[in-house]
């Protein structure tokens, strides 16, 4: 595995190789948050389980958002839960990524007619990767995580870090997020 050397407008000669090395490290250490809301949570567990062992790629779960890099929106999100998820996201340290796992987190899925379900995680979070399926197989989730890895590989990290931390996705709730919780 050789570091990807990018000579893009952001990278340039000096930062390119270092960026490549740093990104190589970052992409192999994606820690995801141990958090699932519904059906997909079971598949999330199975993904960490023996057959689709995500630990091979250096992906382990952490139980606190402070130490997690990836937030996997696993399952249906109700309005009551949405503000909490937003809070979890805000508590994560940059750089952070969001995977919408399953139809419910993508668009609300089966629950279009429901009065209590958020119609898609991207209505309140900047989502990086969408995984279809109801629920997606562990292999799909693995692929989703690998897409995040590919995304990390392409990031001009040093330049961005010197500036400020910001996801390249527009944040649907750019202000303080949801209303403060009681």
């Amino acid at each position, binding site marked *: 595995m050789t570091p990807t050397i990018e000579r893009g407008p952001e990278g340039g000669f000096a930062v390119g190789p270092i960026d490549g090395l740093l990104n190589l490290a970052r992409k192999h250490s994606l820690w995801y948050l141990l958090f*699932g809301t*519904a*059906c997909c949570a079971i598949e999330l*567990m199975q993904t960490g*389980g023996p057959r689709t062992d995500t630990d091979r790629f250096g992906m382990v779960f952490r139980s606190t958002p402070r130490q997690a890099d990836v937030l996997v929106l696993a399952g249906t999100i*109700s309005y*009551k839960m949405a503000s909490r998820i937003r809070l979890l996201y805000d508590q994560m340290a940059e750089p952070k990524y969001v995977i919408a796992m399953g139809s419910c987190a993508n668009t609300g899925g*089966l629950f279009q007619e429901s009065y209590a*379900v958020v119609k898609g995680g991207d209505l309140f979070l900047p989502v990086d990767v969408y995984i279809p399926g109801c629920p997606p*197989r562990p292999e799909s989730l693995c692929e989703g995580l690998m897409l995040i890895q590919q995304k990390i590989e392409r990031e001009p990290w040093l330049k961005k870090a010197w500036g400020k931390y910001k996801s390249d996705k527009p944040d649907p709730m750019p202000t303080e997020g949801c209303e403060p919780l009681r």
Partner: protein
Amino acid sequence: MTEVLQSTPDREELILNMGPHHPSTHGVLRFIVHTDGEIMRKAVPDVGYLHRGLEKIAELQTYPGYMPFTDRINYLEVMFTNMAYATAVEKLLGTEVPPRAEVLRVLVCELNRIASHQITLGCITMDLGAFTPFVHLLRERERINDLMEALCGNRLTFNYMRIGGVSQDVPDEWLKQLEAFLDHFEPVIDEFDSLISYNEILIKRMGEVAVICAEDAVGFGLVGPNLRASGVDWDVRRDLPYGAYPQMDFQVPVGMGEKGTVGDCFDRFIIRVEEMRQSCKILRQCLANLPEGDIKAKVPKMPRPPKGEVYSCVEGARGELGVYLISDGTPKPYRLKWRTGSFAGLSIIEHISRGLMIADLVAVIATLDVIAPEMDR
């Protein structure tokens, strides 16, 4: 920091917010824990973080059209929710289910029960700090997932049953695979026992902890393994037989207070281990006498049950799983209500939590086997 201490009305009481994102709350479930140091004054559950309005959705769907939604009532015991709903509609319609379909239903239900208990037992051990048994059970669960996937094309939300029968017939090859799985899995239960069930620390953590007496269990409407752990010998499969269960021969494990008092956490734990064995037994019987014939009764495409109401229950992995269905003669249900084990199971926590420690609360939640979608629907 002082702010935290001052925030509590009673200066000797610490109010902890546990969840909805907490590693031991299994999905989205929240407790407001009033503690005095490590010892709890009370724990007040706060549910609804996965409320999806499935009962309202039922009023907008036709009878067969609601079947996929029943999968999401409880993603760990999909077959049971399917079956509860299907039997409710069949009762209203007065449909006779063919015998092969009945046995197939029992077969997939018991397989699903094993899968569900695997997650439960794994979560119990994980919450008590032992991570490995959980992963071992996940590994075994993958095999059931394989079988289910071969049968109905999905690993988790099977949508296998139909009103009047089941959707797919099983090939012989699948039955052989199931037998191979049973040969494999029955020793694994023993292995699980020797690995963790009788581990001294686990017994110390669960024996004599959070004892629920039979009276409380009945009063709070606990069902299934939780009720049986309290010493009430009641199983819907045996006592209000439905489907093909009258033909089956199985034992109903009841809490014996093996390592403490009847109704403690250990009883709730070990009963589930026993139930997996009994499920294997039922599965073998299903394999031995699977009748030939149709798998689906003749049911109109758009059934219009007569005006009336019905309550139908099955014994799910978390106990009595009931559907209360009101029909007004149209193709859509007028009202549908799910009666689930977790909802009742959780309501007892506030009652029994006083005097437990925070670590015990984790054991209680895990052994009561509450699961968010079933409570919130």
